[in-house]
Structure formats: C-alpha cells, structure tokens
C-alpha cells in the first residue's frame, strides 16, 4: 500500500520532470545549445506567478496565463539577444554555454533584489486531500496529472503531425539540409525557445503552487531536465518524457529505502552510470555523446 502511494507520488513528480525534460529537449535537440539559463527561466516563472497571484491579486487562470506568456517571451528574448548574435558569429557551442552560464547567474541574482531570499508561498492554507482508490492525492497533484497529460500529448502530437513540428524535427536531424530545403532556421529556433520556456514555466507554476518558491529552485530543475534528457536519449522527444517519468518514479521509490537528502546524489549517480554504460539513453538514437568537441 505504501508502495502504491510512493508510486503515485513518483508519477506526479515524473509528470513535472517530463514537462521540464521535453522543454529542455525541444531547445537542446534542435539548437544544440546547452541552455543553462533554462534553470533561471524556471525560477523567473515561479516568481512571475507569485507576483501576479499574490501581489496583483489576479485569479489563478489569469496568473497562469500571464506567467506562461511572459516566460515564453523571456525564452524568445534570450534567443534573440544572447544566442542569435553568437550564432551569427559562428561562435562555438561552448561559447554559447558560457554565455548561458553568465545569463543564469544574472537572472538568478536579480530575483532576490525584487522578491527577497526567503521562500514565498503562492497559496495559503492546506490542500484538500482526495482519495483515489488506495492512494491519497492533493488537488494540486491531480492538476499536475491532468495538465501534464494534456501538454505532453499536445507537444508530441504537434511534433509528429504539424508543419512546425516536422520543421523542428528536420532541423534536429540535419540543420544544414533543413536550411537547404527552405526551412527558416531562425524561426524554428524562436519557436522552440518559446515553447520550451513555456513548458518550463508550466512545470514551475505547478510546483510553486504546491510548495512555494525560493531563488535557488532553478539549478535542480535544470539538472533534472538535462539528466532526464540523457537517460531518455538525446535527440528523442519521446525519450525525454520517458526519462522524466523514469527519474520521477525511481527517486520516489528510493526515498522508501534511503532518506530524501540523498536524492541529488542518486540522480547523478544514475547519470554517470548511464553515461558509462548506455550513453545513447533508454530510447537510443544514433547521436554519439563523445564525438566532436562540442
């Protein structure tokens, strides 16, 4: 029975991780930019939501809508003002990574100047608890489940069947050939930054509504997204979803055996094991991680 409850918690966490991982994968698989500031995007989203909900007293739907919109815009601005100029200079991806690192530091340190360092709670009061069969779920957990199911299927369906989706996949598979075929790479990049950042924002809002937010939530979120991406298989969007759920469930089950404070250690031990024994991830693709200098 405890196992079932843990499994349920793991799946809920897996939903959040999968959202994060797919957002990260959209950006990474298509642009190959290791978007460290994705973590900062996540943090900013939670604070925007806090700002709208608590300071401006907006309703929850309005706050969520506004936050997702602005987060998406932030992603686009980052692409336009930070990565696109580097791209035009044909700077290496390591240069982009270092810029991203700088950007992350800037954004994460701007937040406490406006909102302080302490944990902010978005909604007061305890959560009503629902009993679904043998397991207990809070309202927000249910919301996570529904939102994630909708968004994840939407993203995967769009990627498979829409025109934009096939453009994204084309750029992922071969950027040069995609351009030759008349695909506007700049447009695709803007689209993935907008969509990826919005997904990070959504995951962030859902988490913040549940447990509140403090300035350092971004880095763990980025790490989870990147690790899930690798576990699932770089280059595959479905893989990122699988990786997210795998990580969520596994973390939750391990909590059963050891204390929560070793969660990070376990995540990264897993990462290193995967890099060592199955670098192509669960849903392996042909990309090899050790090739090239990045």
């Amino acid at each position, binding site marked *: 029975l405890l196992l079932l409850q843990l499994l349920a918690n793991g799946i809920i966490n897996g939903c959040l991780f999968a959202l994060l991982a797919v957002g990260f994968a959209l950006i990474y698989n298509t642009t190959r930019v290791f978007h460290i500031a994705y973590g900062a995007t996540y943090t900013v989203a939670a604070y925007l939501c806090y700002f709208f909900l608590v300071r401006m007293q907006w309703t929850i739907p309005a706050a969520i809508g506004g936050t997702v919109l602005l987060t998406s815009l932030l992603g686009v601005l980052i692409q336009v003002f930070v990565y696109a100029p580097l791209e035009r200079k044909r700077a290496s991806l*390591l240069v982009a990574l270092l810029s991203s690192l700088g950007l992350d530091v800037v954004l994460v340190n701007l937040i406490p100047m406006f909102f302080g360092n302490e944990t902010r709670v978005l909604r007061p009061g305890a959560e009503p608890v629902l009993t679904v069969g043998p397991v207990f779920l809070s309202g927000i957990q249910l919301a996570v489940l529904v939102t994630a199911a909708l968004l994840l299927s939407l993203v995967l369906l769009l990627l498979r069947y829409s025109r934009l989706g096939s453009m994204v996949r084309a750029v992922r598979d071969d950027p040069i050939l995609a351009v030759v075929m008349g695909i506007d790479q700049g447009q695709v990049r803007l689209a993935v930054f907008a969509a990826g950042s919005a997904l990070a924002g959504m995951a962030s809002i859902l988490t913040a509504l549940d447990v509140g937010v403090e300035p350092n939530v971004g880095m763990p979120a980025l790490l989870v997204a990147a690790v899930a991406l690798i576990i699932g298989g770089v280059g595959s969007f479905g893989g990122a979803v699988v990786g997210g759920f795998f990580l969520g469930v596994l973390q939750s089950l391990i909590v059963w055996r050891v204390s929560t404070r070793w969660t990070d250690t376990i995540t990264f031990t897993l990462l*290193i094991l995967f890099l060592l024994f199955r*670098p192509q991830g669960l849903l392996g693709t042909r990309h090899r991680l050790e090739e090239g200098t990045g």
Partner: protein
Amino acid sequence: LNYLWHILVLISLYALLAMSLNLVVGYTGLMSLCHAAFYGIGAYTTTLLMMRADWQFFPALLAAVLLSGLLSLLIGIPTLRLRGDFLVLATLGFQVIVFSILYNADSLTNGPYGIPGIPTPRLAGLEVNTPFRYCLFAGAFAGALGLLLRALVMSPFGRVLKAIREDEIAAAAMGKNVPALKMTVFAIAAAFAAVPGALFAGYLRYIDPTSFTTAESIFILAIVVIGGAGSLAGPVIGAVLMILLPEALRFLHLPEAVAANLRQIIYGLLLIVLMRVRPQGLQGKYGFD
C-alpha cells in the same frame, strides 16, 4: 591594513584555484564545473586530519592533495571522453554529489553546521596566525605553484595538452594516449585545487559546505574565462579583477544582501559580454573554438 592583507590572501587562494582549473579548461579544452568540489575536498581532508588525527598542517595538506587527485579519477575516468556539454553536466553532477556528502554526512563533516576551531598552520615553530603572515604564507604557495604550472605547460607535456585542445584526433593519430593524458591533467588540477582548500581552512579556521557550492565552481570557471583561458597570466588577472571589483562595491555602502547579488550580476554580465566580443578573455590564447 589588515584589510589589505585579507584581500591579498583571497586573491592568492582564487589565483591558485583558477590557475589549476586553467590547466584543464584553458590548456586542454575540457570544460569542468566541479573545481569547488576538489577545493572542498582539500579543505575538509586537511581539517579532519588535523583535528581528528592530530596531524600537522603539512602532512595533512599532502594527504589532501593525494586524496583529491585520487577522487578525481572517480569522476574523470567515466566522463572525460564525453563531448563538451555533457562533460559540463557530468562534472556538475560530481559537484552536486560532493556538496551533498559534505552537507549530509553529519558524522564526518558535521553537516551544515560546519567545523569551527581549526588550528592554524605552523611553519618552523611559528604560528601563521596574523593576516600579514598568512598573506605571505598563501602568497608563497601561489608563487611556487604558479612557477610549477608554468614549467608544466611549457614542457612537452604542456604542448601535448594544447595539441589535444586544438585537435584531439590529430593528437591521437600522432600516437598520444589522449584519454590517459586528459585523466592525468584532470587529476593534477584536482590535486592542485586541494592546496587552496587547505589554506582556506587554516585561514578562516572555520569551514562549512556553503563555501564549496556549484555557484563557487561557476565563479572559479568565470575567473578563468574572464581572465583568459590558456594563458599563464590570465587566471591571476581574473582573480585580481574578480576579487577587487566587488570590494570596490563595498565603498558604495549598499546593504549587504543587495551587494552580494550585485557582485554576482556583474560577473554574470561580464561573462556574457566577453563571450560576445572577446571569447578568449582579457589575456587569453584560447577562444573555445
């Protein structure tokens, strides 16, 4: 005046950290984000050996250097063959694991409460206990290790490292054992990083895990990149600049909380701007192409 010596001690420590990381990042072209982990391993090993086993500072320092070098094999062997961005993630992972061990292994490290009352180092019967003495002490270390690193990068070994940075496949084709060389340089840098760790512990006489966070690793990398990767003077210039710049902010009399964030924002912006206009840093030879 003590304030001046304090600043110089800090510059020596960060110059040591940046110089050793530069060996990996600047000369060999491997991006690593776990230098603060080795810094922490150095600090904690020295401290624990001095306090729990009553070792003297120098033998404890030596043991810390060896341990840090050995532990670097643990992360280096599985990950050094990875491409740039995955190496960053893997080293970041190691950083998080080490931090979490320092933070959570209460019985060994006293967890978040840290370890107070660390004895000061003794040199020839003399306690190195004033800021001035410590400044000379740390400065001597920085100078000596700087000369050692200079000899290292100018040696044939140093040339092979640069060859790996410029073209790994060509270096391998010339008969160089690239994985072994990468591992060697990574271990050397990790061992070196233990030295400022030990000096830091002996200086502040108190350590806790918050000095060895991911943010610290990012900061050390930023020093190398801003100063100039792949040059001898770069890390030193970077360390001087990055320590002095925030100290200058002190004279603006901002509230401490704002100043701390502002410091970080400045170096983040510096990183973004430099990457745009001058990726090789102020004094660098290597622009991460």
